[in-house]
Structures are given as C-alpha cells and as structure tokens.
C-alpha cells in the first residue's frame, strides 16, 4: 500500500497537462507526470518518492500514437513496451523493449516512462540513440522538437513542467541489420550487467550501451575506434574500453572487472558478426 495520499489528474490534451502541472506546482504539490506508473507506484510504496499529485498523461491522444507518417515512425510516450514488441514495426526497438522487466510489467510500462524514469538503465532509449531520433516535448513554452542527442545526456533533460510526448524515427532505420544483447547475472528478467544495442548503417556499426556505466550512452569516438579495421579487433576493444564516459559499474551484481570481461566478449561477438555480414 502507498503510505501517503496524492491527488490524481487525467488531462485529455497536452495543454491541459501543462496547465495542470503549472497550477499544482504553484500550490506546492510537487506534481509528477504519470504514464505507466510502474516506477512511481513501486517507489512510492517504499517512500522513495513523495508527491501530492500525479498527472496521468495516458489520456492525451498524441501520447498514444504508434504509426508511420511521411517515412517517420511516430511513437507516443504512452505506448507500452508490450505494444512495441507486439507491433514488430521497428524490430530493433521491439527486441530492446523485450529486454526490459518481464512481460506483464511491460504491458503497463511505457516507452516514455522507461526513458524518463529514475531507474538508471533506461534500455529502451538505446534504439533511439542509434537511430538519431527526434523527441517531441510539451511544456510551458509550447512544443519542442529536439534531436535526441541534444536532449539526452545520461537522462532526458526536461525543463520544469515539460514532458515527453513522442519519439520520431526515420523509418529507414527499421531496415538496417541490428543486434540487441543483454547479459544478466542469472535470471532472464533482471537488470542487465550490460546491455548493448547495435546497428549497421552505411558500413559502420553503431553501438549504444546500458548497464556498463551509471547511465545509458552512445559515443561517436568509441564507434570510430570499434569500426577502425586497420587495428586488430582486440586492440580496438581495449582502446574503446579505455575511453568509456564514466567508471564501469561496480556493485553486488558484478564487479567492474567482470563487467568489462563480459563487455569485451560481447563486443567481439557483435563486431565479428557484423564484419562477416
């Protein structure tokens, strides 16, 4: 049971949501945008977060979009990971979605919630980083279209009162060869020790990582090194690991050394497959 009370609001348009947030914030209620709600409910139950009001954005039509328009795949923030996996509209994203939590949680867990949540893995963002997607945000200043690389740095950098409405991806990315690999300690449905999504475009392999460092990331420098066929594969991988954007995660699940060992093996397997193809 959640040990404190909060008010629940369900707007039916972006503007209503933004206005509701502004009003509740002015009243000092520390409102939270609520989508699938899996993280908010489980954290609230343990008193890890506190709010006096939640604003459920699932009633906003734009947040429930899943279709292709003008060669762009448009995914609303309230689309669940199960919907993405079942739709098979973007195979890499479907595969990445399947790596998060378990099936019945994914039926509630939304793409927006996974990307904007507090849990650090945010694996569903990896395909969007690989495909240079655009995010659409709604907030007090209106609607913003922003390339994901400009606004996602460790977390999605939202302004006060702003929320994620849609993700827009060039549909061509659904056609490129990809690999999506998650390594866990034991169970399949567990947080990843490492999770790598990769995609080959114009002869170059792109990589996005989760679980390796305390945040998900894609690095063009690492990609350049890993794609440099003038250097032996093992050296490329060692060099890439030497420039990770932060220290490797080191916790009870796995030591940093063990994670790096798995990371090297997995990268080697991915590159060998792509370079053969």
């Amino acid at each position, binding site marked *: 049971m959640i040990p404190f009370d909060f008010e629940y609001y369900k707007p039916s348009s972006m503007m209503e949501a933004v206005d509701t947030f502004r009003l509740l914030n002015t009243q000092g209620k520390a409102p939270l945008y609520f989508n699938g709600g899996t993280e908010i409910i489980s954290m609230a139950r343990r008193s890890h977060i506190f709010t006096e009001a939640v604003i459920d954005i699932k009633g906003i*039509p734009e947040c429930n979009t899943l279709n292709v328009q003008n060669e762009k795949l448009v995914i609303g923030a309230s689309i669940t990971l199960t919907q993405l996996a079942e739709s098979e509209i973007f195979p890499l994203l479907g595969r990445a979605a399947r790596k998060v939590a378990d099936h019945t949680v994914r039926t509630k867990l939304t793409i927006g919630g996974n990307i904007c949540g507090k849990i650090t893995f945010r694996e569903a963002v990896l395909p969007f980083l690989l495909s240079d997607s655009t995010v659409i945000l709604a907030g007090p200043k209106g609607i913003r279209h922003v390339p994901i690389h400009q606004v996602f740095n460790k977390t999605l950098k939202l302004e006060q009162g702003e929320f994620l409405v849609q993700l827009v991806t060039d549909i061509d990315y659904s056609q490129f060869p990809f690999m999506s690999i998650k390594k866990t300690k034991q169970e399949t449905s567990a947080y990843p020790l490492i999770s790598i999504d990769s995609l080959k475009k114009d002869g170059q392999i792109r990589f996005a990582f989760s679980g390796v460092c305390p945040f998900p990331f894609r690095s063009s420098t690492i990609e350049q090194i890993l794609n440099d066929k003038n250097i032996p594969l093992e050296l490329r991988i060692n060099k890439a690991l030497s420039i990770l954007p932060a220290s490797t995660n080191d916790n009870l699940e796995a030591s940093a050394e063990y994670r790096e060992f798995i990371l090297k093996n997995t990268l080697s397997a991915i590159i060998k497959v792509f370079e053969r193809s």
Partner: protein
Amino acid sequence: MPVSRYKNKSPLEIDVNSELKSVMARPADTLLYVLRDLLGLTGAKPGCENGDCGACTVLVDGWPVKSCLMLAVEAIGHKITTIEGLKDTPIQKAFIENWAFQCGYCTSGFIMNCYALSQIHPDAKDEVLQEWLQSNLCRCTGYEEIKKAVKLVLSRNNAKNPKANHPPSLGININDNWRDVKMNYTIQPGDTFYLIAQKYNLPLNELIRANPQINDPEHISPGEIINIPLSRCLLPNQYRLPDPYPERRVAGQNPYYAQLLFDDYAGKVSETTAIMQYIHHHMEMASIPSWQEVSDLEEGISIVEMLHLEMLGKIIIHLGASPCYYDGAQQPWTPQYIAYHNFDPCAQLRADIQSELEAIQQYQAHIQMIQDPFIQALLARIIKDEEFHIKLFSEKLAKFCGSFP
C-alpha cells in the same frame, strides 16, 4: 473535455468481471488493494507487491497486468478480469490434470497469465511461452508442470479450431500501410515522365524519386515498367464536392444584398475567419507529427474557403460594392474572431466543426433574405461544401480524439 480529477477518497466505478462495481477509494490505492480489501475478491494474491512475483496478475482489457503496479483509479474505463471471473476454462482444467501447483499461492496469477496467452497467442511457440511465463514466480514446482498445462491447452485450442480466438486489441491502431503504396505502370509510346506525372497528378520529383532504377528520366522506352507512388498523388478536389459552382452573376445591383454578403465575406462568421482559423490550426498541427494528416486537411479546407471568398468577392462587386474586409455593419475584420485553442488539436477540430455549422446557418438565413436566384444558387452550393467539411472534420475528430461532435 475537462481534466478528470480525484482527490481524497472518491467513488470509483470499475468494471470487474463484467459487473460495474462502485468503491470508495483513495487515488493512491492500488488495484490489488481495492480488489481484495474493498471488493472482497481475494483471488489476486499480494506477494512482493513490487511487480516481481506475478501472484497478483489480473487481466486489463484481456492483457495480463500486475495489479500491484496499477492504481485502481487507472482502471476506470477498462475491463478487469480476476480469477473469480474465469469459470471452468480449459487452462484451469489443464492445471488440475497436470498437477501444475503445490501450495497454490501463485496459481491464480499463473492462470490469469496463461489464460491470456491462450487467447492472444493461441499458437504460441516455445520462446513466446517462455517469455510470458517469466512474469510469474513459483517457489514450489519446477515450472515443468505449468508449461505442460499451457502446452496442452494450446494444442487442444489449435486442433479444435485454429482460427477460433480473437486476441484482444492492443488499443492502438497500427498503420499497416506504412510503406508507400505503389502501382506498376508500363510506359506507352509517346509517354514522358512529365506527362505521366501530370496524368497521375503527381509532383515530377516524386515520380523520379520513386523510380531510382531509371537512370535518365528523359529517355524512357515503351514497355519499361515504372512505379507510381499512389500515396504521393495530389487530389486537388478532395476537400470540396465535385459538383460545379453556379455562374457568378447577379440579377441586378443591390447594395443591401452586398451588405448582407459582407457578413459572409469578412464578418465574425465568415470565409475570412475560416481561412485564417484553419491555416492557424494547420500550422500548429504540422508541428505534431501524428497530426500531419489533420494538418493537411486544415490546409486543404482553408484553400476551398479561399475559393468561396473569391466567389463572394466577385458577387459583391457585381452588386455594386467593393469587397473590403468589413462586415455588414462596416466593422473591420479582426483576428479576435479566430478560435485559436493553442496546442489543443482536439479542441481546434471541435471549433472548426462549430465554425462550419454557424456558417451554414448564416448562409441559410441569407438565402431567405436575398431574393436573387443566382446568389441563392451560389450560397446553396457553398453550403454543400461546408457540410462536406463538417463530415471531414468529424471523421478526424472520431479518429484522433475518439469523440463525435
């Protein structure tokens, strides 16, 4: 549509096992708590209450969900099924036949999940079964008996009638035609890319882009097959009815009739207001990718309204007046007439429908007052377009906002 809001303990109406139940619950109460403690449906079990064990699984619109991770208030408008709502289903029998439980605490959650699987994926392969069963934990059995039970149901299902199941909808409308719809066209003698583009009302560059296999569009040979990207063809008249417009003429000069038509021309309810309003909505909707098709509709209809404006302007000239942007009372047109509804496309669509309705009423009133058969015929024809616009806007409102005006 107003914002739904729930503060403190409120009455919630929830459809549980096809019965509408009313409970007094806090917005912070989970569905699991409400089902068990307020409705007395104890089949869903509290286990981890953290979304890990699956003992509390129920169906929401046919899909299995952990009820500890759902607020009861979120269930409003959805169909909830608990284990109490399943009676003598094949999966329940199969669990008994295969000894697929020991202590039984996790069983109701497993059965709800497996029941949904048998409905949604009646021909599920092993990897799908594996994926779904990972959602539930059992500390007594080795899972093998549970798998056997599900496989038995799936095999019986398929043997009986492989097409019998209609999986519950995901609640989304996935656009199946997401690839360009193309048509093959065989080049005829005398054809050029330019003529073919004209024939199909297609921008030339779109035709060239759809045919990368043609190295030189200037030199095509009869018998060659090219692609016609049908989805790119322009349909110039799709936002107005095909009936011809009557001749723009009047029975004689009449300043009073011109004064009435100024209201239709640039009054509060007028073609000028409609043009400006629809163009504004078009531009705002264009910034939201999922609203592109409605944005295109707004633009297309505003162009038709421009055609109406031009026809009214000519009539006003024939009646002996100058078509300035004033209404019949000589008040200048003002942008305050526009129903902006910024960043609320559903409200914009409703406002557009309302504008068309008001325009029709005004035209009908003017037909009664203007005793000139030529003008009456023109206004009657314009009304037909406006009625068509209401139909087009209403279709989009139903599709995008799930409501009817």
